[in-house]
């Protein structure tokens, strides 16, 4: 593999930098808005560099709601959901991809169609169920309704199907079948998919506002997005600088997770698959 011509490399970087722009711009705007004093947030011409840096915004934002509490709750709830989703999705995907049983195709179709249902359709039924269990305003109430994921099942089934049958035959010779095969072969080989799914689920549930707002009533179990919601004003203008300051510390764990996962992502892509 020879070195690419300089011009080609330069072009590649140029395209990448241009693509980076629309992604970084909102993050940059969030950061500078977060440190602007109130009277600099709205100006006739956009201010790209703040005149004065008001770091006090972070303290004000942090103290506007019990964010420390919310942080812990968000971590507990999101971790719980992702753990359960990984377990149930992996097992379901294994059954759908590798086992033969009556009605498998129809079952898969039903799971697929579950992906198109928005939460607003199922929320009343779920809410009444939780109420009967006495699970309103509890961690279970936030986690259990999301214990299974149609999207995760679909994604992992596709990944498991992509593993060549030859590998399973080889494993069978070594007496490695069933769950043991799943754990020792399919899961490690599908690591990029698992990681991608984890990140998607992480973002979705870390940011979920609607469900926690409906089923919780006390700060003891409420999560971060509810704290963010308190900054949004419908009737008059939102305090954007405080909202952005709060968004910054609420979204920081996600940004860090992506940053860490990114290196791992590339390496796991490079090690997957059979040698051709």
């Amino acid at each position: 593999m020879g070195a690419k011509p300089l011009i080609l490399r330069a072009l590649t970087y140029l395209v990448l930098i241009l693509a980076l722009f629309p992604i970084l711009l909102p993050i940059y705007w969030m950061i500078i808005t977060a440190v602007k004093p109130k009277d600099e947030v709205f100006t006739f011409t956009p201010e790209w560099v703040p005149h004065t840096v008001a770091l006090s915004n972070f303290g004000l934002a942090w103290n506007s709601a019990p964010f420390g509490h919310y942080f812990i709750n968000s971590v507990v709830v999101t971790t719980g959901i992702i753990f359960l989703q990984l377990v149930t999705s992996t097992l379901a995907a294994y059954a759908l991809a590798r086992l033969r049983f009556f009605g498998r195709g129809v079952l898969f179709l039903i799971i697929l169609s579950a992906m198109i249902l928005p939460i607003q359709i199922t929320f009343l039924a779920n809410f009444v169920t939780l109420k009967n269990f006495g699970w309103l305003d509890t961690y279970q109430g936030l986690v259990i309704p999301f214990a299974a994921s149609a999207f995760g099942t679909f994604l992992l089934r596709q990944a498991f199907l992509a593993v060549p049958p030859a590998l399973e035959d080889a494993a069978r010779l070594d007496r490695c079948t069933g769950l043991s095969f799943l754990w020792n072969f399919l899961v490690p080989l599908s690591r990029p998919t698992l990681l991608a799914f984890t990140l998607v689920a992480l973002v979705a549930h870390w940011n979920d506002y609607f469900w926690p707002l409906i089923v919780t009533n006390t700060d003891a179990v409420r999560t971060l997005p509810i704290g963010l919601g308190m900054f949004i004003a419908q009737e008059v203008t939102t305090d954007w600088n405080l909202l952005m300051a709060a968004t910054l510390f609420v979204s920081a764990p996600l940004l860090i997770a992506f940053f860490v996962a990114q290196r791992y992502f590339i390496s796991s892509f490079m090690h997957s698959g059979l040698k051709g």
Partner: protein
Amino acid sequence: MKRMYWLIGTLLVLALLLPACAPTAAPPPAAQGQPTAAPATAAPSQPTAAPAAGKVTVTYWFPVDLGGGLAKVMDSMVAKFNGAHPNIEVKAVYTGNYDATLQKIQAGQLAGNLPDVAVVVNEHTQTLAPLGILEPLDSFVQADGGKKFTDQYFPALLLNSYLNGKMYSLPFQRSVPVLYYNKDLFDQAGISKPPETWDEMEQDAIKLTEKQGGQVSRWGIEVPLEAYNWIYYAFVYEAGGKIISDDLKTLYLDQPPAIEAMNYWNKLVNTDHVTAAYTPWAQASQDFAAQKTAMVIYSSGSQAFFRDSAKFKWSLVKIPQDKQYGVAPGGGKILMFKKDAATEKAAWEFMKWMTSPEETAFWSMNSGYIAVQPAAWDLPVMKDYAKKYPEVLVTVDQLKNAYYEPGAPNYTKVRDLLHDTTQDILSGKISVTDGLKKVTQEGNKLLSQ
């Protein structure tokens, strides 16, 4: 061929699933259609709360609709109430914005998990009362002096408290639309005083609109369009009209004053070109702070925001008049759900306390809402506040010309229809008269359901 099976299979499953989901897909109308389904006496709403003997627990749901930090102010008021009432424990729950609060109430109704007291947006008194879940307040009011009790509040703020002759809510966080204007830009344009009539408002807007290379760089005025049609209602009342009949069954939107009001707005947009056809509500106040518009018709609750954000001199006046001044006060009401007698008694104490002169003054100064009792404005703290910011008195003055903010069973759909049609009219998709005729005809059908 295999693909064919997949396609047919998918469609079949979807066809099976979708009808099954349809009834649950639209909970609000279904819930409204069955007023009898409401639990008349709901179980105590907080099974986890084990109050000490003799202590009554009141669950209180509140939305925050004006800027950050207000949830904390609310918590401090509730803490103060609990401190002063050893026999009552109010548990305050922040429930998002007005819409989310309504959703939470509707879910709570189905699950028998309603709060004892809640703050809802003005028109939802008339949405929730027909469901049979609200406790009428008349007997409590009678016990506390009847008319003498209600006379403590601004009459204008009680307009929306009733349905079918029964009182269901007390005014809590109220606001009116007013006209904000940029004094610096008025000086530059050589305009010596703020407009007092529709004509003056129009002429000033023409003078204040600035263009650069054929593009508008600054609007003369912004008339934002928001979900509650607030500004249009004000225009109709100013033109001497009415929105809805007293029995809440007939719309008057095809009558001359309603047409005149829409014609005026339409003229500002499409003849004078001094305001955009569509300005989202949230954008308008930001535009005013950024001097992208010289005037804006906006909520009186926005004064604190402009004090902090505007780097220029501004003030506010009543919305300029046509035949008369007029607005429909908006904002939130505090109301009570049907519970056992002890809980309701405690809930009533709490509602009275929250709307009392001292507390409504405190909430007003912290939030920008109008203090709901005239007596509040005579308190020394409030007098100091009005001396510091004289413009707050304009909002009180505006209450003298206040009318009913339309609310009726099923009105939410009419409201949305009017909002969407206004947008179509201003963007030229339908004429003023045809559009309003359509709203009136379809709206009357909705109201008679």
